């Protein structure tokens, strides 16, 4: 008993530590799951957040003047003539009518940069459909350029508006205007800029010093030279910034600095220089004021994001604001995202083409992989003699299931395209490649479903004199069908999300027209949803970011649909033996 006592003491002495280890271990496990789930939430959440701007689009509606001289050059109202019209000019005229004082070439280019000329094609089609419009005015809506759209959604430019102090006098001079306030009204803005520039100068100096130090420590001559050059550059920059910052000097605003706009008397001015005493500013007119002279009230409009850091210029931004204020811009649900095919202009790009391509491709995959896969599974599970060939096939299928998908792409390129001469970029070839890739999944899940049918069913069928084939096709296969279907659908969902092998067979091309949803569509060049996502994600335009996220949501929606069908089938027909 005493011995038992001491053992018990020994056990209890370690107990607390062991329980702590237990709790820690359990926490690790829980943490792992929480981590994985948190990542999933982050993934979906960030994509949802990024996709938001893609679902709406700002559209401009302008009264365009369908001047016969422009849209009907031959004057006979025939379709051929209407098709030769210069519709872009029509739109340009309408836009210019909004800002009559814009006349300089470069400024006009900026103005017309607010939309994509591709829109003219739609106007053309409208007029060809309704020739009676020629000579009339027509309210034409078109999406505004992606950069303007993002600006209006508040995604790219930080801006701030505040009422200005006191009176402002507008004095026109040659090309520019001078804005004179009765107090140092520009002081706060100048101070902010100077503070920021000073910070930059500090940073540049620090960088210069750091570079010098490491240059001193470097033995390698080349590296030292590079470092010294870097230090010199940074030093020069700091000096330049500082020299500009003397408090008693005029302040010049360049593209690296925040922009300063002044709204007064119905006009908008872009400040280029602030005088040394901070009471007046040299500015250029973006929108002409109603009259010239004094304004009681004026607004300081600061664009914190410097012009160099955004793709929309100050002027474009002012025009867009003006159009919006005039009620000509409306934020609508972006149907183009779902009805258009790909386009180089983000505002016109949609997923329709890729969606069609995906449907055609998965159709081919289904027609090939499911019958072949189920056939192979039936053979291996029900008919195959236990011999070497069968064994080789089985091992081979298991290994094939783990071959990287890109290798199937290489196979498709070498065999289907180069050897058989099938067309590149076609859903037919894509579907064939994906079918080979999906085959092992279908076979493995079909075999599992067949295996789950109890042998008693087969024995019963054979017992009443059915042949093996009849037993399998009349009794086993129908019972295994739900499982087979579920596995096949999951395999197809995988194929739907696959990208890499399709890049190999050229489905990465830019396709502006969706393939036709008919027989010939199978051999026309096409792309698929995941590849579209890949293409958009590597595009430079900011607006494609949101569209990529939206396309991802569409793809995920499709996959959820597939899986929901699979789950439904499993639940509906699930049978436990």
């Amino acid at each position, binding site marked *: 008993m005493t011995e038992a006592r001491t053992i018990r003491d020994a056990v209890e002495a370690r107990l607390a530590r*062991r329980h702590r*280890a*237990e709790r*820690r*271990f*359990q926490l690790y*496990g829980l943490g*792992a*799951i929480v981590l*994985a*789930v948190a*990542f*999933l939430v982050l*993934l979906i959440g*960030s*994509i949802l957040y990024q996709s938001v701007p893609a679902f709406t689009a700002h559209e401009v509606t302008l009264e365009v003047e369908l001047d016969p001289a422009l849209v009907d050059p031959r004057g006979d109202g025939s379709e051929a003539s209407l098709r030769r019209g210069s519709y872009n000019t029509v739109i340009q005229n309408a836009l210019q009518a909004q800002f009559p004082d814009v006349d300089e070439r470069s400024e006009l280019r900026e103005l017309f940069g607010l939309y994509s000329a591709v829109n003219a094609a739609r106007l053309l089609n409208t007029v060809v459909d309704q020739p009676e419009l020629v000579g009339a005015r027509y309210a034409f809506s078109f999406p505004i350029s992606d950069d303007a759209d993002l600006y209006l959604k508040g995604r790219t430019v930080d801006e701030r508006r505040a009422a200005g102090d006191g009176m402002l006098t507008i004095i026109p001079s040659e090309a520019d205007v001078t804005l004179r306030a009765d107090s140092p009204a520009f002081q706060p803005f100048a101070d902010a800029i100077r503070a920021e520039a000073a910070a930059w100068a500090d940073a540049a100096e620090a960088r210069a010093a750091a570079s010098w130090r490491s240059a001193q420590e470097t033995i390698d001559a080349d590296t030292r030279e590079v470092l010294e050059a870097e230090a010199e550059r940074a030093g020069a920059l700091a000096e330049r910034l500082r020299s500009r910052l003397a408090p008693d000097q005029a302040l010049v605003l360049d593209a690296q600095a925040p922009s300063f706009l002044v709204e007064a008397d119905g006009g908008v001015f872009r400040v280029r220089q602030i005088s040394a005493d901070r009471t007046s500013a040299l500015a250029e007119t973006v929108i002409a004021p109603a009259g010239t002279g004094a304004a009681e009230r004026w607004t300081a409009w600061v664009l914190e994001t410097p012009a160099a850091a955004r793709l929309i210029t100050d002027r474009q931004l002012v025009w867009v604001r003006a159009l919006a204020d005039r009620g000509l811009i409306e934020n609508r649900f972006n149907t183009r995202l779902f009805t258009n095919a790909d386009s180089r202009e983000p505002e016109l790009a949609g997923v329709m083409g890729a969606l069609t391509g995906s449907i055609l491709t998965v159709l081919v995959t289904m027609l090939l992989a499911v019958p072949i*896969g189920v*056939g*192979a599974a039936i*053979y291996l599970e029900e*008919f*195959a003699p236990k011999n070497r060939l069968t064994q080789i*096939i089985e*091992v*081979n299928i*298991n*290994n*094939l299931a*783990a*071959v*990287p998908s*890109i*290798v199937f*792409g*290489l*196979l498709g*390129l*070498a*065999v289907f395209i180069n050897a058989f001469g099938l067309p590149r970029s076609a859903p037919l070839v894509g579907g064939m490649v994906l079918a080979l890739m999906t*085959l*092992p999944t279908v*076979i493995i899940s079909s075999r599992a479903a067949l295996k789950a049918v109890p042998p008693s069913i087969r024995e019963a069928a054979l017992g009443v004199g059915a*042949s093996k084939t009849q037993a399998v096709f009349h009794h086993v296969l129908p019972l295994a069908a739900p499982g087979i279907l579920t596995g096949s659908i999951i395999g197809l969902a995988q194929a*739907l*999300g*696959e*990208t*890499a092998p399709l*890049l*190999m067979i050229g489905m990465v091309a830019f396709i502006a027209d969706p393939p036709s949803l008919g027989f010939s569509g199978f051999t026309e060049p096409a792309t698929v949803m*995941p*590849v579209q*996502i*890949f293409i958009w*994600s*590597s595009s430079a335009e900011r607006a494609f*970011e949101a569209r*990529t996220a939206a396309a991802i949501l569409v*793809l995920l929606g499709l*996959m959820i649909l597939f899986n929901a069908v699979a789950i439904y089938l499993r639940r509906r027909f699930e049978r436990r033996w």
Partner: protein
Amino acid sequence: MQISVLVALTLLVLTAVGFLVGRRRALSAADGQPASLHSLPDYYGYYIALWTGAPALFLLAIYGIFGAALVNTLAFGQLERDAAPLIRGYEAALSQDADHQILSGRLDRLNDQIAGLRAELQGGTHSGDVEADVRRLSALTAERNQVQAGLAERRSEVASGIEARTPDTPAGRRALAGFEHWRATPERRELFIADARALAFDEGLASRDTPALRAAAAALQPVERLFQWSAAGAALALAVAGLAFARSRVSRRFRARDRVEGAISAVLLLASIIAILTTVGIVFSLLFESIRFFAAIDWRIHEFLFGTQWSPQIAIRADQVGQSGAFGAVPLFAGTALITLIAMAVAVPVGLFAAIYLSEYAGPGFRAWAKPALEILAGVPTVVYGFFALLTVGPALRDFALFLGYEDAVTQSALSAGLVMGVMIIPFVSSLSDDVINAVPQSLRDGAYAMGATKSETVRQVVLPAALPGIVGAVLLAVSRAVGETMIVVMAAGQGANLTANPLESVTTITVQIVMLLTGDQEFDSAKTLSAFALGLVLFVMTLMLNIIALRVVQRFRERYD
């Protein structure tokens, strides 16, 4: 198109007729006693339908695969015969052309010199200044390219002279078409044929439209029509013959069911053989193209496997062929290894702990939602992970690195690709480990609990050691997954072939390079394009070995506890 649709329809009808005939015939053979037949009447129908449809369809399939090539060969053979005078004139002109003579003489000499120098450099018997010789070699190669270009130019001048003299008559245009086809390099020839076919049969869009092409198209049309009709006729004849043959065999004792079932199992066997054919196709296409690649780099396979310089873009410049190091794949292997390592560092602990928690700790309620959540993670397409890595994880990591004072941080880094890939693989590891852990018999756990072990002690000291082989197998499969994963690395890891162990730098992997080499403009048969297949071969062999080992290990493990 119309003919083929017509033929297909007729075949369908014939097959249906065959079925009906078979049934009829069987019933009449049975003298009104269907039970006396060996098989059900339908089987006789299927039997005849099979004999009617299958051979004809097989013939049509053969025609579909080889028909176009045959038509092209015949039609262009005829055109080249029409062009014979032109070809003779061209060759005569060339043999009299002084410039051409001089240039080809120079080319021959240059080729000899280059071959000699190469042999000397490779033979190892070389004495003297190797570097100078290498420099001389590249100078010679450059010169040879110049001479070749000159020759090509001279030839096309001569050819255009001949072409200009050809009369613009239908016959002349045919001759021109044949001449152009004869003179074209293989790639140009394919394009020429494709364009001609496009013009002739509306197969897609032609890239050009010249009189010669029109003539070629006109020459193609009758041949094609002839073949189409004869193929259609042959198919229908075969169908009818099959029907008649099968019908003649039907009798009361005939074992139609056995025949039909034999055909069914043959088809099923064929379906399973497709899996083997796929593997064979992969192995052969990769091997074949890789051999062409190795031939293009003069069989210096060791340089491909152990070289540390990867710059296939430069390597296609002619004067650099033969320069060493451009196809050294070590940076790719290192990048793949680095990213795989990072991914495994994420996926293995998290996946394993998740599996342990799910199978040993979690209640049924928790499992009911945690498992599907992990499955969703597995179902997300890789391109979505790539996007996430590129736009969210990459910038966040870069900013974090910058914040920590690491100034060279970039968005596309091994770390962000590896991390995201690791997350992608978590469900893979966890579901495989879950299976393995559940396969450990409960009696072992009971044994440990009965000794007074806590749950974690049981898991760590009994369950995990017992499951270890299975878990190793799972990890190997996960590694093979990571090695072969493409989209995440293409989008998030970068393209520069850096040989570095720094996870904050961008690296490239085997799969990224395959994608880079095979997307965008590519010329067939260049070493650059072919190298993708060699990389594919390496990838395939690597993953195959991992899979075989992993499947073996897992199978052994399962056998032990069954």
